[in-house]
């Protein structure tokens, strides 16, 4: 029994060990600092398979791209999730609440590849128009600048897909913590004349604050590691970091990089891709650990 319980520890350490071990050749050839801060990703292999120059591998552009689309996703998803959670907990009738809960859970069960197909066929044709509108009307804000005149494959669209995928996660956790607000406090607030907003603002949100932060971190972890759906709609650009131009079709995502480059990679590039996987693994592990730690303090606070 104990052996089984520590299976997860074994797996986690093995993941860390093997990803580090197998990515050593690439990291040694690049130097750790260059690997983490470089933006180029080129195996310098020509079509006939001969290597002309030294290959360069750097994950910085992809890493920042991953974080950028995750931020967009959280920005959209957080208000939506909290809104739905508030509705389910405080407003909806019991039957409607059950229906919504099942719907949201079902949304969480839809495979990411299905979201990927939706993103290609339904979201991109519409989303590119939104992007274009943002550039044409709000282009004076650096955020919406786009010099290329193409609005397909932008971090903006990838962020929207991700926001849909993480909404169920944030919603269900927020719903749970908001639902745990002591009924006495809510009744007291209402007795003092507090309508919905004051009750939320002064009773429920302070009570659920750290739980909602934990939920956001959980959603962030999921957004950082999402692969297929992003792979379909994001245009990966190497060589420079797109810091904030979210409607420019230049983005990055470590997970997509791995999927995109994997099939045609030589051993050294595979090793570099494993290094990218290691970076991704570490980041999600940190984010999730913070989330768990926050969630735990909430429980012990009570």
């Amino acid at each position, binding site marked *: *029994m*104990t052996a*089984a*319980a*520590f*299976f*997860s*520890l074994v*797996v986690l350490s*093995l*993941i860390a060990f*093997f*990803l580090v071990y*197998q990515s050593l050749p690439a990291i040694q050839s690049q130097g750790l600092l260059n690997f983490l801060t470089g933006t180029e990703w080129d195996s310098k292999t020509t079509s006939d398979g001969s290597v002309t120059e030294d290959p360069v591998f750097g994950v910085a552009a992809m890493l920042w791209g991953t974080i950028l689309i995750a931020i967009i996703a959280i920005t959209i998803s957080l*208000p*939506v*999730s*909290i809104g*739905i959670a*508030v*509705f389910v907990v405080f*407003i909806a009738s019991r039957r409607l609440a059950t229906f919504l809960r099942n719907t949201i859970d*079902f*949304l969480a069960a*839809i*495979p*990411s*590849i*299905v979201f990927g*197909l*939706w993103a*290609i*066929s339904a*979201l991109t044709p519409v989303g590119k*128009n*939104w992007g274009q509108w943002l550039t044409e009307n709000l282009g004076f804000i650096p955020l919406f600048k786009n010099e290329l005149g193409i609005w397909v494959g932008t971090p903006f669209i990838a962020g929207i897909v991700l926001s*849909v995928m993480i909404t169920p996660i944030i919603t269900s956790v927020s719903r749970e913590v908001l639902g745990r607000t002591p009924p006495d406090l809510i009744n007291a607030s209402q007795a003092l*004349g507090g*309508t919905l*907003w004051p009750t*939320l603002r002064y009773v429920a949100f302070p009570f659920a604050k750290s739980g909602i932060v934990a939920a956001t971190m959980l959603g962030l972890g999921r957004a950082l*590691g*999402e*692969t*297929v759906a992003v792979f*379909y709609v994001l245009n990966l650009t190497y060589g420079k970091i797109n810091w904030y131009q979210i409607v420019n079709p230049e983005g990055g995502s470590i*997970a997509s990089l791995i*999927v995109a480059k*994997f099939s045609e990679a030589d051993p050294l590039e595979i090793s570099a*891709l*494993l290094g990218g*996987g290691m970076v*991704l693994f570490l980041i*999600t*592990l940190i*984010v*999730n*650990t913070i*989330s*768990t730690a926050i969630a735990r303090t909430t429980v012990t606070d009570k």
Partner: protein
Amino acid sequence: MTITATAQAIPTPQRPWRRRSKNDIILVAAASILPGLTSLLLYQLGIFSAVIAGLFFIIAQISAGAIAGVIHRGKRGLSDGILIAAIGFALAFIGTVMSSVIWSVVTKGVEALKWQFIIQNNEFITPTSPLGYGGIGHAILGTLIIVGIATLISVPIGIATAVYITEVRGRSRVLVQGLVQAMSGVPSVVAGLFIFATLIFTGISEFNGFMGALAYTILMLPTVARTAEEVLRLVPEDLRSAALALGASRARVVSMVVLPTAKTGLVTAMLLGIARVVGETAPLVFTIFGSAKTNINPVDGPMAAIPLYIFNGVRQPFAPEQARAYSAALVLLILVIVFFTLARVLSGDRRKGKK
């Protein structure tokens, strides 16, 4: 004079128990319908472009919420009205997205979905072959085999982990809980890469179905363990105490009392685990390689699976292959719905049984 002023300051009783009066209903209806109607009208008349009409609608709806709130409850109603309008947008957003997702897969997926598509394999089929030939029978078999093996591995370990946390109550219980939580955050692409880096890149194994099953296990285990843990917590403490009082050992309490009591819940845990992994694509890209032939031997060469079939199919620039990919996505979605509904029905039965 002062007396009358005081009398005026006393508010009329609000009768909070009467939740909806006729006026309220009219107010809510007006606030919900008017902004949308106005925006639609302005758009139809050509005064506003689509985007402007949309923005106008958002602003008008929120203002309408605020006004309705003020009419209904005075100054205090302002923030409530805005809040409810905003919540309405959140619900509309998720509702639109969800129907759009299902709609796009269903409408594009029915075209190639015929009986032959379910039972035939993809051998001799090129991306341009017409829709009447070939299918994903091989991929369905592959998915069932890979998920089946992953289930066989992860369910016992997952339940054992849950038992360790709830029943054994060892000293490192919190640590194990944290580890399971951390493991549930492992991105699916990393799970696939890990199996690739340890077993395939090193030459220990070739690309085959079993490798895919191992990658799935990493993703499935935390889901099973956490759901099972919750289920085991629901087993009444009295039952355990009674069994212990009868002289049963800890092991017997678990095997003869706790686990049988939680049987349905454990099946739910398994089904949720399956629903979690059945559509995962990224782990398969690095482990099973994909195949057009039927291969039901998980340790002998490349295997096909539905997610991988979709993943490769949709990247082809040819219409028939894309149609096939969407049909495969529809099949996958139906599979997920089946597992998800089964899990829901079972857990619902449990809740009713408890009450």
